[in-house]
């Protein structure tokens, strides 16, 4: 994962609350088996609307999304984070995030910073009054700077450290492999195993046919 300490880029005001992951990337785009190339899928349903914020020239190259509360609710699809990153976003700011989305962001180097709703309103006003305004997000000081305004944001300490160091979770965990092996030795025998497989007898499943 790439290290990130500060980021400066065009801020995009998204005046919507409860932006769920089906809006960030609809399910039809989840059929791909790759990890990149999702930029066309971001906000797919809204991109057809000429008045949508990303269709306005000043915001098109945006990399800091400033959204309403409860951003990223719904499904666990990490594709939502990939789509934001593939489009060019490096930071999403909102007063509240859905838990899974926030976790996924941290794993993929997308900064999900929590900003008080009144400060979000302040940023929206700046970004709408002066489209194309650049926003600087500083993980060191945990601040967001736009125009003449500086506001704080919150991010959990561990995620912040990992983002700044660019560390891979699996590598970190495997440093504790001896602990995992020791834990496994203590597991009770009743805990289930999927192998060897046990199931009821195999039965032929009749295919349903279209109703004429």
């Amino acid at each position, binding site marked *: 994962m790439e290290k990130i300490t500060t980021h400066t880029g065009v801020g995009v005001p998204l005046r919507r609350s409860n932006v769920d992951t089906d809006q960030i990337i609809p399910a039809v785009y989840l*059929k791909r088996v790759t990890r990149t190339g999702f930029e066309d899928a971001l906000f797919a349903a809204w991109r057809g609307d000429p008045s949508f914020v990303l269709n306005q020239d000043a915001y098109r190259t945006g990399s800091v999304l400033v959204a309403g*509360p*409860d951003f990223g609710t719904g499904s*666990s699809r990490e594709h939502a984070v990939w789509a934001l990153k593939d489009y060019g976003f490096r930071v999403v700011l909102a007063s509240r*995030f859905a838990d*899974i989305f926030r976790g996924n962001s941290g794993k993929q180097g997308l900064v999900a910073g929590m900003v008080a709703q009144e400060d979000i309103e302040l940023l929206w006003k700046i970004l709408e009054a002066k489209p194309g305004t650049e926003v600087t997000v500083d993980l060191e000081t945990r601040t967001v700077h736009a125009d003449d305004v500086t506001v704080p944001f919150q991010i959990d300490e561990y995620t912040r450290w990992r983002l700044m160091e660019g560390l891979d*979770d699996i590598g970190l965990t495997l440093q504790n492999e001896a602990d*995992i092996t020791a834990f496994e030795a203590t597991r009770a025998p*009743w805990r289930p195993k999927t192998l060897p497989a046990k199931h009821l007898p195999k039965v032929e499943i009749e295919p349903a046919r279209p109703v004429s």
Partner: protein
Amino acid sequence: MAGTLAEKVWEAHLVRQGADGAPDLLYIDLHLVHEVTSPQAFEGLRLAGRPVRRPDLTLATEDHNTPTLDIDLPIADLTSRTQIDTLRNNAKEFGVRIHSLGDADQGIVHQVGPQLGLTMPGLTVVCGDSHTSTHGAFGALAFGIGTSEVEHVLATQTLPLAPFKTMAITVDGELPPGATSKDIILAIIAKIGTGGGQGYVLEYRGEAIRRLSMEARMTICNMSIEAGARAGMIAPDATTFEYLKGRPHAPEGEDWDAAVEYWKTLRSDDDAVFDEEVVLRASDLEPFVTWGTNPGQGLPLSANVPVPTEIADEGERVSAERALEYMGLEPGMPLRDVTVDTVFIGSCTNGRIEDLRSVAKVLQGRRKAEDVRVLVVPASARVRLQAEAEGLDVIFKEFGAEWRNAGCSMCLGMNPDQLTPGERAASTSNRNFEGRQGKGGRTHLVSPLVAAATAIRGTLSSLADLDLDDDVDLTSFDGTPLAPLTAPSFV
């Protein structure tokens, strides 16, 4: 120290306690895998040259993309077929057990785990799917994870996690006839909001919860995520043990006795302290239906569509205006006057055998409303077999419904089962987001009983709107198990 159920399960899985702000490292007992959120995770393992650490704690099935018609033919949608082929190849390469389309144990991953007896009290269960919260009905700590975490669990069988906060949701009293566990959870979400559970594990308790069957409990825990919570739990009891006993992977002999002894300790202590408490009275509940585009935008069926100008909070008002425009509803109109084009009965929320039994009980001997399309999609192939053994398929077909093969189907429209733009559905699924069931589609979330009544009348309806025969026993709709007819038990 006194602990909650969630804290007890958490502590029993601590591989390593986090220090200095680092998260805890938690052991994962059961990892369920499906085709949509796993390909990039397996690819990550391959690139790093890592094996699956515990194939014997991993299970894969195909559900999101699978067609519900002509399942013996090649999948027509090329990208869907590629995704399913990718899962099959990954399962083979990494030695993971898989139940593929056409297999009797194929189906929605949250039905397959429980029906095989793999989901048990006191486990940690994860899957790259937010509705993994379903398994919490057994007293497991179960939650959805993203693809990076799927890769992490495949590689290490652990997850680094910061502890959740705990919320007790107590549902007192008895459900009135015609109300179900779906109405309980829709009412909870309307009360606490779609963000109300963020950061929490919800524990559902109280008399109304204790009286629910295992499957009805799964419906409640399933939709914990719609309240913003990653996990929902219900303490295991005799209902849980009864459901598990004799299932293929349930412990046997001494292991069963040891397990039950331990499972009985899995309850929040009387003096345990929750970070938040919410109380609901089941007797106040009636059939619930959503009118908007998030699951918190719900009301009792007897209510009218909200009038946005009467909503004080600006954010909520704007959101309601947008939702009504998308849904094509007039402010103030009675919800009962809303006509639907499609009724979808299925999903990991309400596609289980008891759901199908209760629907069949209402539909028996009737015909669907004209111009309404009715889809009945069992959650798994075993549920389908069970329903057929009980003759439910005949009831559905005589009613005019389409009886399909198992899968996620129209819940999220990744397969051909979709709404067309402007098409309106009463759906027993879990999300009414814009475009969720197909681009431009309009979704009203309902219980199986409301879905059944709506399929008969063509407008959003409850059992109270039907002229039900006297011999239809309404009390058996309160979530207590509906007995099967004379038939072998598959699920």
